[in-house]
């Protein structure tokens, strides 16, 4: 098994973030991530960014009262 370079890891980043890494390279990815603080940090902070952004949809804040009133008026008219 040839170790992955950082460049090769970077090319696989989207697959890693989407949990779509092909089975035959999965072990090499894991090894690289556990040994390379730069790539390990990159993947961890990308994952954290995605999780935190996705959380925006947990509960949409209510509409401001004046906006809600204008929209209601428009729909009623």
């Amino acid at each position, binding site marked *: 098994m040839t170790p992955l370079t950082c460049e090769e890891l970077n090319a696989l980043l989207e697959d890693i973030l989407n949990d779509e890494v092909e089975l035959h390279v999965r072990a090499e990815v894991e090894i690289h991530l556990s040994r390379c603080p730069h790539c390990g940090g990159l993947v961890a902070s990308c994952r954290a960014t995605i999780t935190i952004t996705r959380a925006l949809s947990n509960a949409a804040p209510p509409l401001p009262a004046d906006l809600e009133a*204008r929209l209601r008026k428009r729909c009623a008219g």
Partner: protein
Amino acid sequence: MSPADEVTTTALALPPPPTAEEVFRDYAPRIYHLARRMLGNDADAEDVTGDVLMQVVRKLHTFRGDAALPTWLHRVTVNAALAHREKRASRAKHETAVGDENVLDSGPADPPGAVRLNRPKVKDTPADVVLAQEQRKLIEAAIARLPGPFRDVYVLADVEGTANPDIAEMLGLSLSAVKSRLHRARLRMRELLAPHFEPDTATGGNDR
């Protein structure tokens, strides 16, 4: 009642279509926030939300139960926001020079300041993350810094959770174009938000 009668009764007991009030209460905030993220300003988002709500209210009688409603609303909102932006862009072309929408700005992230983001734990799902108002604002401001074509893909994928093939269809893009834009948008969002994360005690804070 025989089992056969029971089945017939159950099949016929479709829930009534939602009322305009229910649509307003349950969906107006989602429509508005999606439109606002895609368009980047309050006034355009209000226009689009008004148009979408009016379309829904007119078609309410066609919805039995609301299983199909959220998906339909999502699609209608995306289409309305794209059409609105196209109209705005063609107006702007006549008035001012338009910048290159395909270039990601490479300006620095805002200084971390007082707003910090708690780094989610590895096992955390988005549902486990609770955002304070100022944290939401910070994330929304970072999204607003993405140019339109990147923002659309990012908002649909990473805020709305839409699958890449569906995004490709909605935006009229190839799947590889969606993946490529998402990749660049994610890296830019990480650049903008990572300085605000609390240090990662597990990996010693290796973010760079």
